[in-house]
Protein backbone atom coordinates (compact mmCIF):
# COMPACT_ATOMS: atom_id res chain seq x y z
CA UNK A 1 0.00 0.00 0.00
CA UNK A 2 1.52 3.25 -1.18
CA UNK A 3 1.75 5.96 1.49
CA UNK A 4 1.98 8.82 -0.99
CA UNK A 5 -1.07 7.66 -2.94
CA UNK A 6 -3.02 7.39 0.32
CA UNK A 7 -1.99 10.94 1.28
CA UNK A 8 -3.10 12.26 -2.10
CA UNK A 9 -6.43 10.46 -1.81
CA UNK A 10 -7.08 12.07 1.58
CA UNK A 11 -6.06 15.49 0.27
CA UNK A 12 -8.43 15.04 -2.69
CA UNK A 13 -11.38 15.02 -0.28
CA UNK A 14 -10.69 18.59 0.85
CA UNK A 15 -12.43 21.50 -0.86
CA UNK A 16 -10.32 24.69 -1.07
CA UNK A 17 -7.40 23.34 0.91
CA UNK A 18 -5.68 26.38 2.42
CA UNK A 19 -2.32 24.87 3.37
CA UNK A 20 -0.21 21.85 2.50
CA UNK A 21 -1.10 18.68 4.34
CA UNK A 22 1.58 16.27 5.44
CA UNK A 23 1.40 12.82 6.98
CA UNK A 24 2.11 14.17 10.42
CA UNK A 25 -0.20 17.20 10.42
CA UNK A 26 -3.49 17.16 12.28
CA UNK A 27 -5.71 17.30 9.22
CA UNK A 28 -8.74 18.40 11.24
CA UNK A 29 -7.01 21.67 12.06
CA UNK A 30 -7.09 22.72 8.43
CA UNK A 31 -9.64 25.50 7.93
CA UNK A 32 -11.31 23.73 5.06
CA UNK A 33 -11.92 20.56 7.11
CA UNK A 34 -15.39 19.91 8.47
CA UNK A 35 -17.60 16.92 9.23
CA UNK A 36 -18.53 16.58 5.55
CA UNK A 37 -14.86 16.22 4.63
CA UNK A 38 -14.66 13.49 7.26
CA UNK A 39 -17.58 11.67 5.69
CA UNK A 40 -15.97 11.70 2.26
CA UNK A 41 -12.67 10.40 3.71
CA UNK A 42 -14.55 7.51 5.33
CA UNK A 43 -16.32 6.74 2.05
CA UNK A 44 -12.97 6.86 0.20
CA UNK A 45 -11.46 4.36 2.66
CA UNK A 46 -14.36 1.97 2.11
CA UNK A 47 -14.34 2.48 -1.66
CA UNK A 48 -10.62 2.20 -2.29
CA UNK A 49 -9.45 -0.09 0.53
CA UNK A 50 -12.61 -2.06 1.34
CA UNK A 51 -12.46 -1.12 5.02
CA UNK A 52 -15.45 -0.04 7.09
CA UNK A 53 -14.03 2.47 9.52
CA UNK A 54 -16.39 3.31 12.37
CA UNK A 55 -16.93 6.88 13.45
CA UNK A 56 -15.14 6.26 16.76
CA UNK A 57 -12.16 4.67 15.03
CA UNK A 58 -12.01 7.54 12.59
CA UNK A 59 -12.22 10.17 15.30
CA UNK A 60 -9.39 8.57 17.25
CA UNK A 61 -6.97 9.13 14.34
CA UNK A 62 -5.35 12.53 14.66
CA UNK A 63 -3.01 12.52 11.66
CA UNK A 64 -3.09 11.08 8.16
CA UNK A 65 -0.23 8.80 9.24
CA UNK A 66 -2.42 7.29 11.97
CA UNK A 67 -5.22 6.87 9.46
CA UNK A 68 -2.82 5.24 7.02
CA UNK A 69 -1.56 2.83 9.68
CA UNK A 70 -5.10 1.85 10.58
CA UNK A 71 -6.00 1.15 6.95
CA UNK A 72 -2.75 -0.71 6.37
CA UNK A 73 -3.18 -2.92 9.42
CA UNK A 74 -6.78 -3.78 8.66
CA UNK A 75 -6.03 -4.43 5.02
CA UNK A 76 -3.47 -7.07 5.92
CA UNK A 77 -5.92 -9.07 8.04
Amino acid at each position, binding site marked *: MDREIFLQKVIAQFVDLDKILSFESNFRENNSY*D*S*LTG*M*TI*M*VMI*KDDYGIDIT*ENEYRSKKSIAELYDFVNQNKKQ
Partner: protein
Amino acid sequence: MKAYINGISYYLPEKILVNEELSKMHPEWSVEKISEKTGIYQRHISSDNEYSSDMALSAIELFFAEHIITKDKIDFILFCTQSPDYSLPTTACIIQDKAGLSKTCGALDFNLGCSGYIYGLGLAKGLVETGQAKNLLLITSETYTKLINKKDKTNKTIFGDAASVSLITSEPNDDYFKASLDKFVYGTDGSGFENLIVKNSGIKKHTKKSINNYDENGDYKSNDDFLYMNGKEIFQFTSFEVPLLINKTLIENSLEIEDVDMFVFHQANEFMLSFVRKRCKIPEEKFFVSIKDVGNTVSSSIPIALLRAINQKKIVSGNKVILAGFGVGLSLGATVITFE
Protein backbone atom coordinates in the same frame (compact mmCIF):
# COMPACT_ATOMS: atom_id res chain seq x y z
CA MET B 1 -53.97 1.65 -19.76
CA LYS B 2 -51.08 3.97 -18.90
CA ALA B 3 -50.62 6.32 -16.00
CA TYR B 4 -49.20 9.79 -16.54
CA ILE B 5 -48.06 12.65 -14.36
CA ASN B 6 -50.11 15.45 -15.86
CA GLY B 7 -49.51 18.44 -13.64
CA ILE B 8 -47.73 19.55 -10.49
CA SER B 9 -48.28 22.49 -8.15
CA TYR B 10 -46.53 23.26 -4.91
CA TYR B 11 -46.99 25.48 -1.90
CA LEU B 12 -44.33 27.13 0.23
CA PRO B 13 -45.21 28.72 3.58
CA GLU B 14 -44.88 32.51 3.77
CA LYS B 15 -42.34 32.67 6.60
CA ILE B 16 -38.71 32.46 5.48
CA LEU B 17 -35.61 31.71 7.53
CA VAL B 18 -32.46 33.09 5.88
CA ASN B 19 -28.86 32.10 6.62
CA GLU B 20 -28.10 35.47 8.20
CA GLU B 21 -30.67 34.71 10.91
CA LEU B 22 -29.22 31.23 11.43
CA SER B 23 -25.76 32.71 11.77
CA LYS B 24 -27.02 35.16 14.39
CA MET B 25 -28.54 32.28 16.37
CA HIS B 26 -25.34 30.23 16.02
CA PRO B 27 -22.43 32.69 15.66
CA GLU B 28 -19.94 29.84 15.26
CA TRP B 29 -21.48 29.23 11.80
CA SER B 30 -20.79 31.87 9.17
CA VAL B 31 -23.32 32.69 6.46
CA GLU B 32 -20.71 31.80 3.84
CA LYS B 33 -20.02 28.41 5.36
CA ILE B 34 -23.70 27.51 5.58
CA SER B 35 -24.38 28.61 2.02
CA GLU B 36 -21.27 27.04 0.51
CA LYS B 37 -21.67 23.62 2.09
CA THR B 38 -25.40 23.11 1.88
CA GLY B 39 -26.26 25.18 -1.19
CA ILE B 40 -29.20 26.45 0.87
CA TYR B 41 -29.67 30.19 1.40
CA GLN B 42 -33.16 30.16 2.83
CA ARG B 43 -35.96 27.80 3.79
CA HIS B 44 -39.71 28.24 4.32
CA ILE B 45 -41.17 27.60 7.77
CA SER B 46 -44.80 26.69 8.46
CA SER B 47 -46.48 29.10 10.87
CA ASP B 48 -47.34 27.97 14.40
CA ASN B 49 -50.91 27.09 13.45
CA GLU B 50 -50.16 25.69 10.00
CA TYR B 51 -50.06 21.90 9.79
CA SER B 52 -49.48 19.37 7.02
CA SER B 53 -53.19 19.27 6.11
CA ASP B 54 -53.29 23.09 5.85
CA MET B 55 -50.29 23.15 3.56
CA ALA B 56 -51.76 20.30 1.50
CA LEU B 57 -55.00 22.27 1.13
CA SER B 58 -53.07 25.36 0.01
CA ALA B 59 -51.24 23.25 -2.58
CA ILE B 60 -54.55 21.73 -3.75
CA GLU B 61 -56.12 25.18 -4.20
CA LEU B 62 -53.09 26.25 -6.23
CA PHE B 63 -53.32 23.08 -8.30
CA PHE B 64 -56.96 23.66 -9.26
CA ALA B 65 -56.25 27.32 -9.99
CA GLU B 66 -53.40 26.33 -12.31
CA HIS B 67 -55.06 23.37 -14.08
CA ILE B 68 -58.30 22.86 -15.96
CA ILE B 69 -59.41 19.62 -14.27
CA THR B 70 -62.20 20.08 -11.73
CA LYS B 71 -62.40 18.70 -8.20
CA ASP B 72 -65.30 16.36 -8.95
CA LYS B 73 -63.08 14.38 -11.35
CA ILE B 74 -60.67 13.35 -8.58
CA ASP B 75 -61.39 9.80 -7.43
CA PHE B 76 -58.38 9.05 -5.20
CA ILE B 77 -55.91 10.89 -3.00
CA LEU B 78 -52.65 9.54 -1.66
CA PHE B 79 -51.16 11.67 1.09
CA CYS B 80 -47.49 11.29 1.93
CA THR B 81 -46.50 12.74 5.29
CA GLN B 82 -44.55 12.01 8.44
CA SER B 83 -46.10 14.93 10.23
CA PRO B 84 -49.81 14.03 10.09
CA ASP B 85 -52.37 16.13 11.96
CA TYR B 86 -53.26 13.13 14.12
CA SER B 87 -52.04 9.56 14.63
CA LEU B 88 -55.62 8.78 13.74
CA PRO B 89 -57.70 9.51 11.71
CA THR B 90 -55.90 9.50 8.42
CA THR B 91 -55.14 13.08 7.42
CA ALA B 92 -56.12 12.27 3.82
CA CYS B 93 -59.75 11.97 5.01
CA ILE B 94 -59.61 15.46 6.51
CA ILE B 95 -58.11 16.78 3.30
CA GLN B 96 -60.85 15.14 1.19
CA ASP B 97 -63.51 16.98 3.15
CA LYS B 98 -61.82 20.34 3.50
CA ALA B 99 -60.75 20.41 -0.15
CA GLY B 100 -64.31 19.72 -1.26
CA LEU B 101 -63.43 16.49 -3.04
CA SER B 102 -66.04 13.86 -3.82
CA LYS B 103 -67.23 11.44 -1.12
CA THR B 104 -66.68 8.65 -3.64
CA CYS B 105 -62.98 9.46 -3.50
CA GLY B 106 -60.56 6.94 -1.96
CA ALA B 107 -58.08 8.45 0.48
CA LEU B 108 -55.14 7.22 2.50
CA ASP B 109 -51.95 8.42 4.17
CA PHE B 110 -48.60 6.75 3.80
CA ASN B 111 -45.63 7.38 6.01
CA LEU B 112 -42.41 7.96 4.12
CA GLY B 113 -39.99 10.86 3.89
CA CYS B 114 -37.42 11.56 1.21
CA SER B 115 -38.32 8.47 -0.84
CA GLY B 116 -42.06 9.17 -0.47
CA TYR B 117 -42.68 10.77 -3.85
CA ILE B 118 -41.27 7.74 -5.69
CA TYR B 119 -43.35 5.31 -3.62
CA GLY B 120 -46.39 7.53 -4.15
CA LEU B 121 -45.87 7.45 -7.91
CA GLY B 122 -45.55 3.66 -7.75
CA LEU B 123 -48.77 3.28 -5.75
CA ALA B 124 -50.54 5.74 -8.06
CA LYS B 125 -49.40 3.84 -11.15
CA GLY B 126 -50.81 0.63 -9.65
CA LEU B 127 -54.17 2.21 -8.85
CA VAL B 128 -54.52 3.97 -12.20
CA GLU B 129 -53.24 1.23 -14.49
CA THR B 130 -55.51 -1.38 -12.87
CA GLY B 131 -58.51 0.90 -13.33
CA GLN B 132 -59.09 1.51 -9.61
CA ALA B 133 -58.62 5.24 -10.10
CA LYS B 134 -58.73 7.57 -13.09
CA ASN B 135 -57.61 10.86 -11.65
CA LEU B 136 -55.48 10.59 -8.54
CA LEU B 137 -53.88 13.37 -6.54
CA LEU B 138 -50.52 12.46 -5.02
CA ILE B 139 -50.02 14.96 -2.22
CA THR B 140 -46.83 15.46 -0.22
CA SER B 141 -46.69 17.74 2.81
CA GLU B 142 -44.21 18.01 5.65
CA THR B 143 -43.74 20.29 8.61
CA TYR B 144 -40.38 18.85 9.71
CA THR B 145 -39.42 22.26 11.10
CA LYS B 146 -41.94 21.67 13.91
CA LEU B 147 -39.97 18.53 14.83
CA ILE B 148 -36.59 20.27 15.08
CA ASN B 149 -35.10 21.32 18.42
CA LYS B 150 -34.21 25.04 18.58
CA LYS B 151 -30.63 24.10 19.46
CA ASP B 152 -30.24 21.76 16.47
CA LYS B 153 -28.40 24.00 14.02
CA THR B 154 -27.71 21.23 11.50
CA ASN B 155 -31.30 20.21 10.93
CA LYS B 156 -32.51 23.82 11.15
CA THR B 157 -30.13 24.64 8.31
CA ILE B 158 -31.14 21.79 6.05
CA PHE B 159 -34.90 21.33 6.30
CA GLY B 160 -37.71 23.52 5.02
CA ASP B 161 -41.47 23.01 4.90
CA ALA B 162 -43.48 22.57 1.70
CA ALA B 163 -46.39 20.73 0.12
CA SER B 164 -46.97 19.51 -3.41
CA VAL B 165 -49.77 18.07 -5.51
CA SER B 166 -49.29 15.90 -8.60
CA LEU B 167 -52.07 14.63 -10.81
CA ILE B 168 -51.63 11.02 -11.90
CA THR B 169 -54.17 10.13 -14.55
CA SER B 170 -55.04 7.70 -17.31
CA GLU B 171 -56.74 10.52 -19.23
CA PRO B 172 -54.08 13.23 -19.60
CA ASN B 173 -54.85 16.71 -20.86
CA ASP B 174 -52.51 17.72 -23.69
CA ASP B 175 -52.45 21.34 -22.51
CA TYR B 176 -50.04 20.30 -19.75
CA PHE B 177 -46.87 18.24 -19.63
CA LYS B 178 -47.50 14.52 -19.81
CA ALA B 179 -44.99 12.02 -18.42
CA SER B 180 -45.61 8.26 -18.40
CA LEU B 181 -44.38 6.21 -15.45
CA ASP B 182 -42.00 3.45 -16.44
CA LYS B 183 -40.46 0.73 -14.23
CA PHE B 184 -39.76 1.27 -10.54
CA VAL B 185 -36.97 0.04 -8.30
CA TYR B 186 -37.36 0.06 -4.53
CA GLY B 187 -35.05 -0.61 -1.59
CA THR B 188 -35.21 -0.72 2.20
CA ASP B 189 -32.69 -1.07 5.01
CA GLY B 190 -34.65 -0.92 8.24
CA SER B 191 -31.51 -1.71 10.25
CA GLY B 192 -30.76 2.01 9.92
CA PHE B 193 -34.12 3.18 11.31
CA GLU B 194 -32.51 4.98 14.27
CA ASN B 195 -30.35 7.16 12.04
CA LEU B 196 -33.21 9.48 11.16
CA ILE B 197 -35.90 9.38 13.78
CA VAL B 198 -38.16 11.16 16.24
CA LYS B 199 -38.04 8.56 19.00
CA ASN B 200 -40.97 9.84 21.04
CA SER B 201 -43.29 10.24 18.07
CA GLY B 202 -45.39 7.09 18.23
CA ILE B 203 -47.03 4.68 20.61
CA LYS B 204 -43.69 3.15 21.52
CA LYS B 205 -42.16 5.73 23.85
CA HIS B 206 -38.47 5.37 24.52
CA THR B 207 -38.09 8.01 27.19
CA LYS B 208 -40.49 9.76 29.51
CA LYS B 209 -38.72 13.05 29.87
CA SER B 210 -37.47 15.46 27.25
CA ILE B 211 -33.78 16.11 27.79
CA ASN B 212 -31.13 17.55 25.51
CA ASN B 213 -28.02 15.44 24.94
CA TYR B 214 -24.72 17.10 24.04
CA ASP B 215 -21.49 15.76 22.55
CA GLU B 216 -18.04 16.05 24.12
CA ASN B 217 -17.61 19.52 22.58
CA GLY B 218 -20.81 20.74 24.17
CA ASP B 219 -22.68 20.83 20.87
CA TYR B 220 -26.34 19.78 20.79
CA LYS B 221 -26.67 16.15 19.77
CA SER B 222 -30.20 14.89 20.35
CA ASN B 223 -33.45 15.00 22.26
CA ASP B 224 -35.87 12.08 21.92
CA ASP B 225 -38.81 14.44 21.48
CA PHE B 226 -37.27 15.95 18.34
CA LEU B 227 -35.87 14.96 14.97
CA TYR B 228 -32.50 13.24 15.19
CA MET B 229 -30.31 12.67 12.17
CA ASN B 230 -27.05 10.75 12.19
CA GLY B 231 -25.59 12.63 9.26
CA LYS B 232 -22.60 10.34 8.84
CA GLU B 233 -24.72 7.20 8.60
CA ILE B 234 -27.18 8.84 6.19
CA PHE B 235 -24.26 10.06 4.11
CA GLN B 236 -22.76 6.57 3.96
CA PHE B 237 -26.11 4.98 3.10
CA THR B 238 -26.66 7.47 0.31
CA SER B 239 -23.09 7.24 -0.97
CA PHE B 240 -23.15 3.49 -1.40
CA GLU B 241 -26.80 2.66 -2.06
CA VAL B 242 -27.85 5.38 -4.51
CA PRO B 243 -25.31 4.45 -7.22
CA LEU B 244 -26.57 0.84 -6.99
CA LEU B 245 -30.16 2.07 -7.15
CA ILE B 246 -29.49 4.13 -10.27
CA ASN B 247 -27.65 1.28 -11.93
CA LYS B 248 -30.53 -1.10 -11.24
CA THR B 249 -33.07 1.46 -12.48
CA LEU B 250 -31.17 1.80 -15.74
CA ILE B 251 -31.04 -1.99 -16.18
CA GLU B 252 -34.74 -2.47 -15.32
CA ASN B 253 -35.67 0.14 -17.91
CA SER B 254 -33.17 -1.14 -20.52
CA LEU B 255 -31.35 2.19 -20.57
CA GLU B 256 -27.76 3.36 -20.57
CA ILE B 257 -26.85 6.49 -18.66
CA GLU B 258 -26.45 8.30 -22.01
CA ASP B 259 -30.11 7.57 -22.83
CA VAL B 260 -31.31 9.60 -19.86
CA ASP B 261 -31.83 13.31 -20.48
CA MET B 262 -32.10 14.50 -16.88
CA PHE B 263 -31.75 13.17 -13.34
CA VAL B 264 -33.87 14.67 -10.57
CA PHE B 265 -32.88 13.35 -7.16
CA HIS B 266 -34.26 14.08 -3.74
CA GLN B 267 -32.81 17.50 -2.91
CA ALA B 268 -30.99 16.59 0.31
CA ASN B 269 -28.25 19.23 0.30
CA GLU B 270 -25.91 20.41 -2.41
CA PHE B 271 -22.77 18.80 -1.02
CA MET B 272 -24.35 15.37 -0.84
CA LEU B 273 -26.01 15.76 -4.24
CA SER B 274 -22.74 16.70 -5.88
CA PHE B 275 -20.91 13.83 -4.18
CA VAL B 276 -23.55 11.27 -5.17
CA ARG B 277 -23.80 12.61 -8.72
CA LYS B 278 -20.08 12.01 -9.23
CA ARG B 279 -20.32 8.50 -7.77
CA CYS B 280 -23.19 7.74 -10.16
CA LYS B 281 -21.06 9.13 -13.03
CA ILE B 282 -23.82 11.53 -14.07
CA PRO B 283 -22.67 14.58 -16.08
CA GLU B 284 -23.33 17.86 -14.26
CA GLU B 285 -25.45 19.23 -17.12
CA LYS B 286 -27.86 16.28 -16.76
CA PHE B 287 -28.33 16.72 -13.04
CA PHE B 288 -30.95 19.17 -11.82
CA VAL B 289 -30.43 20.88 -8.48
CA SER B 290 -32.92 23.33 -7.00
CA ILE B 291 -32.45 23.75 -3.30
CA LYS B 292 -31.14 27.30 -2.80
CA ASP B 293 -34.42 28.97 -1.82
CA VAL B 294 -36.33 26.06 -0.26
CA GLY B 295 -33.88 23.70 1.46
CA ASN B 296 -34.59 20.00 1.88
CA THR B 297 -38.37 19.74 1.69
CA VAL B 298 -38.40 15.95 2.26
CA SER B 299 -41.08 14.27 0.09
CA SER B 300 -41.86 17.52 -1.74
CA SER B 301 -38.31 18.04 -2.96
CA ILE B 302 -38.59 15.91 -6.10
CA PRO B 303 -41.92 17.33 -7.37
CA ILE B 304 -40.72 20.89 -6.69
CA ALA B 305 -37.43 20.30 -8.53
CA LEU B 306 -39.18 18.40 -11.35
CA LEU B 307 -41.68 21.22 -11.98
CA ARG B 308 -38.90 23.81 -11.90
CA ALA B 309 -36.86 21.80 -14.41
CA ILE B 310 -39.91 21.60 -16.71
CA ASN B 311 -40.64 25.32 -16.35
CA GLN B 312 -37.00 26.15 -17.08
CA LYS B 313 -37.18 23.95 -20.22
CA LYS B 314 -34.44 21.71 -18.86
CA ILE B 315 -36.88 18.89 -19.53
CA VAL B 316 -38.82 18.87 -22.80
CA SER B 317 -41.05 16.58 -24.79
CA GLY B 318 -39.39 13.27 -25.65
CA ASN B 319 -37.07 13.33 -22.65
CA LYS B 320 -36.44 10.44 -20.32
CA VAL B 321 -35.90 11.45 -16.71
CA ILE B 322 -34.77 9.41 -13.72
CA LEU B 323 -36.31 10.36 -10.38
CA ALA B 324 -34.68 9.02 -7.20
CA GLY B 325 -35.56 9.40 -3.53
CA PHE B 326 -33.61 8.18 -0.50
CA GLY B 327 -33.55 8.75 3.22
CA VAL B 328 -35.53 8.09 6.40
CA GLY B 329 -36.44 4.44 6.91
CA LEU B 330 -33.92 3.86 5.59
CA SER B 331 -35.76 3.76 2.31
CA LEU B 332 -35.05 4.41 -1.32
CA GLY B 333 -36.73 4.23 -4.69
CA ALA B 334 -36.29 5.35 -8.27
CA THR B 335 -38.15 5.33 -11.56
CA VAL B 336 -37.95 6.53 -15.12
CA ILE B 337 -40.55 8.92 -16.50
CA THR B 338 -40.93 9.63 -20.19
CA PHE B 339 -42.22 12.99 -21.41
CA GLU B 340 -44.52 12.56 -24.40
